[in-house]
Every structure is written in C-alpha cells, then in structure tokens.
C-alpha cells in the first residue's frame, strides 16, 4: 500500500502508527484498577492465565481495538467521501447511514429488546444502516450526480431523525429515554469481544471495497467529465465508496453509537500535513481517526468525568477547535 505514496507520506504513516501504539498502551492503563505501562506490557506478554493478563487481554484490549477500528472506519470513510463528493464538509453521515443506524438502535431500546439480548441494539442498528444503504445505492446505480447523492443522504437523515424524535417522544419511561440519548452520544463502555466480532468483519469488508480508490479520487479533483476522459469508471468508484462507507460506518455506529466529528475533522488534520491530494489522505486519515478515538476514550475515563462523559461528546470537543484552527489556516487555498 505504501507504493503509491511519497516519502513524506511514508514517514507520516509510520509516525502515526507509533503514536497509535502509544495511545493504545496508555489507554490500557485506565480502568477499574489503574495499571502502569509496565504492567500493561506484562499483561500482554505474560502467561495467559495470570490475573493481569486476563484484565488486559479480555477486558481492556477488546475495547481499545474496537475503538481503533471504529475510529479508522470513520476517518477513512470521511476522507473517501470528501474526495468522492469533492466537498470538504462531507462526512460519513451525509449518506444517511449514521442517522438510520441510530434509528434502529433507538427502536430496539424503545421495545425493551435489550432485556432479551445484548445483540438487540447492534443488530437493529445494522438493519437500519442496511436499509439506508440500499436506498442510496439504488440511487447511485441510476448514474445519479453527486448532488443527487448528497440530497438523498440528507433526505434519509432527516427522515431518520424525525422518526428518532417520534420514538423518543413516545418513550415508555425516563430510563429508556435516557438509554436512547446516551446511545446516540456514543460510547465504548463495557464493549466486549462480542461487539468486536460483530462489527470488525463488516468494517474490514467495507475497507476491502474501497482499496485502490485513491487514483480515481485524485482524477475527480478535475471534475466528472475530466475524470472519465482520464479512464476513471465513475459509476464503479461511486458504488465502491458508498457501499464501503455504509458497511464500515454502519457497523461502527451499530456497536458504538453515534460518534460525531471524527469523519469530518480527521481528513482536514491530515491535509494540513500531507497536502490536499485525495489519494494521500486516505491511509493517514484511517490511522489518525483511530488515534483520535482512542485519545477521546482515554479522556472519558479521566477522573473529572465521573464515568458519565460520553465518547461522542469528547470527540466533538477535541475535533471542533482543531477543525476551526485548520479551516482558518487553510482559508487562502480553499476556494
């Protein structure tokens, strides 16, 4: 994958991976029993049946890895969608998958299905994401313009949001209303290997669909006609990115809830370092997304949060100021 990248991109990718490993280790020190980095490393390398090893490998690692996958899914999809839609404001939510996945989750909570199975919320959520994906893909398959795609996504999001409001409005009791709101703010709390094995296959499948889209996205910087006359199959490019985003982001939202801002902000942070070529920001955006989410998850577990701080709130709090600074710094070139 490194082959198409310039040297500065290679360095950036290596640096980002090192940072990711670093924040991952730090994240593993947080939990019910605070551990040192040395203890974390011991838990990772020690015998499998030691107490330390069980805490690290079975409790903390799944949560950290899930967070990394979710962050990477959001970052990568954000970068790919911004390239496809040629719009720096695009984020995975614009194709309507996020809101539809949330609707699925809220419906599951409304009917109290969580009492029957811990899978109820993620499965309903995935079903919501799937429905939205099928609508958007049906539109994309008719060779629709980018504008039509965005408008379809906005329409789907609005509809899903309206239905979410309706469900909340009729929430059977305050507890379930509270569950709905908290779910929509996003969290990695108490996520286990079950959630990991539910979401990660779809996230990876989505990425596989999007492998090698960089060249087409670069050519698309010149517009659709120019890209076509440069040999880019736009219909296929659109299909791959929308289906890929829907799968990976749909799966991510299903297990972690609505986590805003990562998909929007991360590509901008990466552009600041490697320039605006759509192709060069894809891989770094995935890793930077994983870093941002892991960092945010550490912050949710800092003492001042009292264990009440939700992940989506923190990502927005980190993301928004960084976003504003970058928008200000790049205002000359972005016209």
């Amino acid at each position, binding site marked *: *994958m490194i*082959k*198409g990248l310039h040297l500065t991109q290679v360095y950036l990718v290596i640096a980002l991976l090192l940072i990711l490993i670093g924040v991952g280790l730090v994240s593993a020190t947080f939990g019910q029993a605070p551990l040192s980095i040395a203890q974390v490393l011991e838990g990772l390398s020690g015998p499998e049946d030691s107490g330390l090893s069980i805490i690290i490998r079975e409790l903390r690692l799944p949560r950290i890895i899930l967070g990394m996958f979710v962050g990477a899914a959001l970052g990568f999809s954000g970068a790919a969608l911004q390239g496809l839609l*040629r719009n720096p404001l695009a984020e995975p939510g614009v194709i309507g998958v996020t809101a539809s996945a949330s609707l699925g989750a809220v419906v599951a909570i409304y009917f109290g299905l969580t009492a029957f199975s811990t899978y109820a919320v993620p499965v309903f959520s995935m079903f919501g994401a799937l429905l939205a994906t099928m609508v958007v893909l049906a539109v994309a398959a008719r060779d629709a313009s980018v504008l039509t795609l965005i408008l379809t996504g906005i329409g789907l999001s609005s509809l899903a949001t309206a239905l979410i409001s309706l469900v909340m409005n009729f929430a059977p009791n305050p507890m379930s209303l509270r569950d709905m709101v908290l779910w929509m703010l996003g969290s990695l709390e108490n996520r286990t290997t079950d959630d990991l094995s539910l979401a990660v296959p779809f996230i990876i499948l989505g990425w596989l669909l999007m492998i*090698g889209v*960089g*060249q087409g996205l*670069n*050519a*698309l*910087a*010149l*517009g659709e*006609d*120019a890209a*076509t*006359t*440069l*040999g*880019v*199959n736009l219909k296929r490019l659109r299909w791959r990115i929308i289906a890929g985003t829907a799968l990976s982001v749909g799966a991510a939202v299903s297990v972690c809830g609505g986590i805003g801002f990562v998909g929007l902000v991360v590509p901008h942070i990466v552009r600041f370092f490697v*320039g*605006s*070529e*759509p192709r060069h920001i894809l891989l770094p955006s995935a890793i930077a997304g994983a870093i941002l989410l892991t960092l945010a998850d550490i912050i949710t577990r800092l003492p001042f949060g009292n264990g009440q701080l939700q992940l989506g709130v923190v990502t927005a709090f980190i993301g928004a100021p960084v976003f504003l600074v970058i928008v200000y710094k*790049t205002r*000359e*070139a*972005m*016209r």
Partner: protein
Amino acid sequence: MSSKIETAGLALHGVGVALGGQQIIEDISFDVKPGEVVGLIGANGAGKSTAVRAALNLVKLAAGHIAVDGVDTASLNLKERAKLMSYVPQGTPVHWPLVAERLVALGRTPHLGPWDKISNAEQEIIKAAMVETDTWHLRERIATTLSGGETARLMLARTIAVGAPYMLADEPTAALDPYHRLQVMDIMRAQAKAGTGILIVLHDLSFAQNYCDKLVLLHKGKILDQGDTRQVLSDKNLMEAFQISVSRWSDGNTDYLMPSTGVTPASEAS
C-alpha cells in the same frame, strides 16, 4: 473497407444525441485528421459542447458512432479511450488545492495502474508539457491560487501530458485576455504540428479563420457547413447561424472578421 491512410483520424459518423427527450444534435458527421486543427463553431445552444462530449463517449449516442483510426470507440474500455483522446472541458474547476505539478501529473492517469508511482520517464513527459505551456515555473504553486490565464495553461499542460493522438478542447480561450488567448492558440498549433489531431470549440471567428485548418459550423444541432475556413465563414452562413453581418479586413497575411451588425431573430424566420 478503405485503407489505413483513409481511416486515420477521429471521425463522427451520423451522430445524434437526445437529452431528456429533446434532440440536441442530429446527423453530425465530420473528422479530424492527425496534425489538423478543426474548429467547431456555432451560436450558443447550437450543440457544440454536446458534439464534443459525444465524440468522447461522455453522453449516450442516440444514433451513429465514433471511430478513432477506424476503430469504433464504443468497443474500447475507458482507459483505452483515455489514451486516444484527451479533453479540456469548458472552464475546468479545480476542486482541491493541489500542487500545480501534481495536477498536471493527473494527465498520466490512463497510463498508470492503481498503485503505480510516477516514473522518471513519466516525470519527463509532465515536465515537457509544463515547459511547453509556460507553466514549469509555477510547478510548486497551489493550483487554486493561480490566475485565470495560468489555470487555463495548467489545464492545457494536464491535457498535453496525457500524450493522446487526439485532443478535444471546449472553449479553452474563454475568459482569457487577448495575449493569453493567442498563447493558448499557439500552443494548440504547436501540438498539431507535432502530429496531434485537434478539435476545438471557438467563439472568436477571427481565431477560427486564422488558427484552424478546417471548420465545422453547427446550427440548431445540425451541420450547416464544413470544410475550408473561408467557405464556412461566408456571409450567408454567418447570417444564418449567428444572425450577424461581418466586416472583413486583412493585415499582412492575416484575415480578420468582426461582427458588425446583428439582426433580430424575427427577420430570420422564413
């Protein structure tokens, strides 16, 4: 069939295009030989852009077919077509603040696999295209911060970098000042001299007369006349296609024509 020599060229055969139930162009047939600059002229809405887009297979043909050197382009895949015909769309926007040299490098896309890097040989082609369009000194600039003239030349460099035997340009001189118009036309002529067949949409009738080897005049989606520039730019044709009379004069070897009086469309009804 005819010999190789006769089939050399980009040829439209009886091409028709309908968009939204409306017939935009009908029965369009003309060809562009290697080394030739063919000007496509006509009033607004005559179907010039559609004809160019049809030649590039960017719109669905309702009738006819396109052949390049005797091969039906509908039988080729996107990459094969991309290597045969390069395109300068009208007023191409740049959607991201790309570095100028990287933008020109996009012209090599049809020649690269999804993971290929720009090789030294590719780099030489990119540099040559930028030198020829006088944009090499801008190579490290951000494309979105360049002036209109610089952007137009950069787009031309991007198109030349494709290295296709045929180039189709939709109003590449629009929005340029007189000096940069001349510069762009000179670049086009130099490309033709090197063997490229060029189809160019033009509004300036003097440019059409002085820079083109052949003209195709479109009127209401059909070809009104084509061939020698003087013959196509006759008073009668210009009156019918543009509803204008022109003044003509010569300066040395160069002929000029300038619209002098317009007539109201009503008087043209017959």
